[in-house]
Every structure is written in C-alpha cells, then in structure tokens.
C-alpha cells in the first residue's frame, strides 16, 4: 500500500518536473520551419542536383568511371585532325565531341566523387533539391549540346571513317603480302 502511494507521488512529481521544462519552453522561439513557404539556407558545397557545364566538358570519362552506381552515360566522337573544338575554361584542350552526356538522377547516390575527379570542374552539384517529377524518364537529364540527329550523324561518320581506315589498312597489308609473295616467287 505504501509503495503504491509512493509510486503515485513520485510519478506526479516527476511529471511536474517535466511539465516545468515544457512550460519554460513555451516562451522560447520556435525551431520549426514551415517548409514549402520557408526554406533553410544551404551551406556552400551542398550536395544536391548534379549539373554539367557541357561547354567545358572534354569527354575524359573520369566521372563515369568513378561513379559507384554507374549513373553517368557518356558517348564521345573524336574530332577530326583539322577540326578545332577550342579549349575549356581551365585551359584543357577539347579533343572530343561529347555527343551524349546523360545522368540518371534516380540512380545518383549524391556521393560527390564525380565532381572531385573532374579536371575542368564542369560537373558540379547545385543547391537545387526539389526535383520530383511525374514520369520516371524525366529523371534522366541530358546535357549534350548536340541535336540528336547531328549526334547520330557524327557517330555514323566516325564509324564510316573507322571502317574506311580499317579497309585501307587491310588493303595495304594485302598489298604488302602480295609484294612479299612476288619477291619470294622471284
């Protein structure tokens, strides 16, 4: 019986101690933010949506290679010897057409590896975080500056050029073989 009343007494007292804390905090400023209306400041270097400044991209594949989840897709076409694609803002010469630079933001794990390895700082994380979309395909961001048909043309051209080169090489080889044979026959 005594234990029972002691328990009741202690419970009441400890609740009152807690309530005193709560009461005191009634007069302190609130710490909650009404999110869609108010937004908190993000610090410098925050890791949210990825962005690629494609003019600076030299197509080195470093970001695609280090990505732990393989969410960066790059296709490049080598520039012809007489073509000058200029330089990136950091001074690195651009020698490739980046015909495709897609990032699947649904796969991205925001680990920041791609931005740390980029030699020209062209891929970086912005402070944009409200990126929900209605369609899954809209989560794939395309950054290449080439129109699809032109990109396709570049790819076809490169393939043709390569095929021509290979054919020329094969022909040259055959010629050399024939010459050799002729020599042996002599």
């Amino acid at each position, binding site marked *: 019986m005594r234990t029972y009343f002691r*328990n009741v007494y202690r419970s009441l007292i400890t*609740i009152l101690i807690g309530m005193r*804390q709560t009461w005191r905090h009634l007069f302190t400023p609130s710490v909650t933010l009404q999110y869609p209306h108010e937004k908190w400041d993000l610090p410098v270097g925050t*890791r949210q949506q990825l962005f690629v400044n494609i003019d600076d991209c030299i197509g080195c594949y470093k970001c695609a290679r280090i990505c732990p989840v393989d969410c960066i897709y790059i296709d490049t076409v080598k520039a012809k010897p007489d073509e000058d694609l200029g330089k990136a803002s950091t001074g690195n010469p651009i020698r490739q057409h980046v015909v495709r630079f897609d990032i699947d933001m649904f796969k991205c*794990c925001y680990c920041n590896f791609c931005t740390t390895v980029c030699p020209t700082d062209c891929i970086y994380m912005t402070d944009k975080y409200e990126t929900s979309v209605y369609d899954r395909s809209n989560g794939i961001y395309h950054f290449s500056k080439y129109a699809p048909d032109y990109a396709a043309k570049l790819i076809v051209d490169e393939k043709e050029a390569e095929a021509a080169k290979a054919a020329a090489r094969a022909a040259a080889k055959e010629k050399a073989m024939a010459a050799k044979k002729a020599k042996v026959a002599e």
Partner: protein
Amino acid sequence: MFNNIFKKQRYYFDSEGLLVVDMSPSSAVHYQEAVQAATQDAGFSGEDMVINFGPQHPSTHGVLRLEVVLEGELVKKVTPHLGYLHRNFEKHAEYIPYNEIVPYTDRLDYLAAMNMNLGYVLAVEKLLGLTELPERVEYIRVICAEFNRIASHLMAIGTFGLDAGAITPFLWAFRDREKILDLFEWLSGARMLYNYIWVGGVARDLPDGWVEKAKEFLDYFEPMMVEFNNLLTHNHIFIERTAHIGILPADVAINYAATGPVLRGSGVKWDLRRDQPYSIYDRFEFDIPVGEGMYGPVGSAFDRYWVRIREIEESVKILRQALDQIPEGDVFEAIPRKIRPPAGKEAYFRSEAPRGEIGFYIRSNGSDIPDRVKCRSSCFVNISLIDEISRGQLVADLVINIGSIDIVLGEVDR
C-alpha cells in the same frame, strides 16, 4: 469464421503481366496451415497464438518482422525474420574499387554514417599498412565520429521514449540532432549519407569557423541534456515501465557477442575506444559508462538506455578535448593515388560504432577491387538477443525491448 473472410476473390498479375483471378481460398488455408505448423514446431498446444509483428510496424524501427508465439499476453517465443532491406552490400563490394565502397558503407547504418565510413576506412588502412596519417585528419575523424555518436544516440533515446509512450522527448531529441546534422551538412555537403571519411584522409577540410560553431553547439547542448533527463530519464512512469524488463545477464550477452550499449548495459566494461584504442582515442580522457542497475536489476532495458545517455556525456567530453587540440595541417596529403593491397592479404578490423562493434573483414586479390568484404554488423548480432530477453514477458514489453536494443535495419539486413 475466418475462412469466410479469406474466401474473397484475389487478383494478381502473373509473370507475363496477365491478370489472374484466384477463386480458391488458398491464402486462408496457407495461413492456417502455417499457424498450425509454427505452433507444433515450437511444441506449443493449440491454445497458443502466433502473431506476426511487423514488417510494417512503427515500433520495429524499420522493416523487422517478428513471429511471436503468445500465450495470452505472455511471449513464449520470438523468431525474427530478416531480409526485407537486404541488398547484399557484400556482393556490391566485390565489383567496385576500394574507395568507391565508402558511399555504400554510408547506407549500412544510415543514422551513424560517419562511424560506418570510419570503420571501413580503418580496415582498408590496416590492409594497406597506412598508419601514419596527418594529425589533423585523425582529429577530424574523431570529431565526426563522436558527433555522429551523439546524433545516433539522440535518435535511439528519442525513439525509445516513443516506444514507451513519451512523444515529447522524441521531438526534443530530434531538434538537437538536427543541429548536428546542420554541422555535418556544412562540413560534407550532405545531411545523412556523408561519404566524408576517405582512405587516407577526409573529403574536405573543416570550413572556417566550423570549430567555433561546434563548440557553440556543445555549450548549447549540455544544458539540453539536463532538460532531456528531467523530461524522460527521471520520470518515474518511464522508469517503472523499463527498469524491470528485458534483463540480459552479462554471460548471456558475451555468449551472444553483444556489443556496444547492449553489452555495457549488462555491466561489462568493454569499449574498443579504450580497450583496443584505434585512431587517436588513447589521447582523450573519458569514462566507459556501464549499467548500474539504479532502479532494477542490472542489464534491464533502462540500463541500456542509461548507458546511451551517459555515453552522450562522454562523447561531449571527448569532443571538447579534440576541438581544443585540433592542429593545423593538410588533410589530403596522405590520400593514396592507388589502393592495391598485395594479393591474398586479409585484415579484420573492428571499431566502436554507436550501436556496437562494426567489423570489416577484407580480403584482397591484388587488384583495386576487393575479393571479399564482410561486414560484421552490430545490430545483426544484437537483435538475435530479442528472443532471449523477451521470453516470458508481456507483448507490450516486446516493443520496449526492441527499442532498447536499438537496431537500424539498414545494418541488420545489409
């Protein structure tokens, strides 16, 4: 009676994507058969009831599913079923280079990602023989790990209060945890999954003014812990609710290889930071809190909670020393260009994460991709105790026992 309920039509899509209508009451039959089989396996009579607890239950702290055999309201047997969050981290790790595994370790214990990073990175450094790191790196690592320990324990004690029916302390704990996350966001750019501690260094140097802000936070935080204690720890109802249940004797805890607050709550003074000091923990002065059995038997749910509260205070002590001593220096100089341990070498390294020992067993095959990465998860081991500590208690106490073990399913299921 139940048969009628289950006799509804069921629709599902087969492998070709076609709609199939299942008219048979197979689900009801399966369910009843399963119940009968489970009760018979456990050696219980038909009076016992098998209930399914989870996986979508707020107090299981994730997607843990427990198969509970009840006799009235008493728990007779608890069988945990894991794997609802299984993604086979260990298989992933066999396909990607050493440094790229660090973001994956974030996702193990996502409430203490810094400690997971640290545990993995220290294991790789042991494998590489990389012991001489810049002083500043070591200090930054310890500071991050201890801050994350506080954040993780705040989450643990907050949700533990929630399990016991106290809602307010949960929100208070979250408010303070949020401030730590702000510090981390400033430091690493992310709030939860930091990818901050890298092999041989850290991802970024401390920003200007970070140390001062961190000290400011500690000054703010210590009185808040007193308030938290007033609110929850010393509350008599809470004590009565938790101090007599979930009793775990020390020998059982050791036999089950329980670690962290679960082991220390049973009165075993064992902390890797003191007993096998890694990084620079041997330079700091701090105590190892153990369960004292203040309000009931040693090793109760309250003791495990109390150890967490005390550990927060010890972490604050370590942080104050580390923030005062932190030297200047370059944090990137020791980051290795290539991580290629010799073939066939293997290392096991364990470190003290908030929930217990996190161990990484790494075998190398000579390339930059590991041959095997085994994560010895603390929660995985600790949750196997749930049957031991809940048997013979009320089903309402089961919730508190889960909360007192403090699991994170990301680490249990890996």
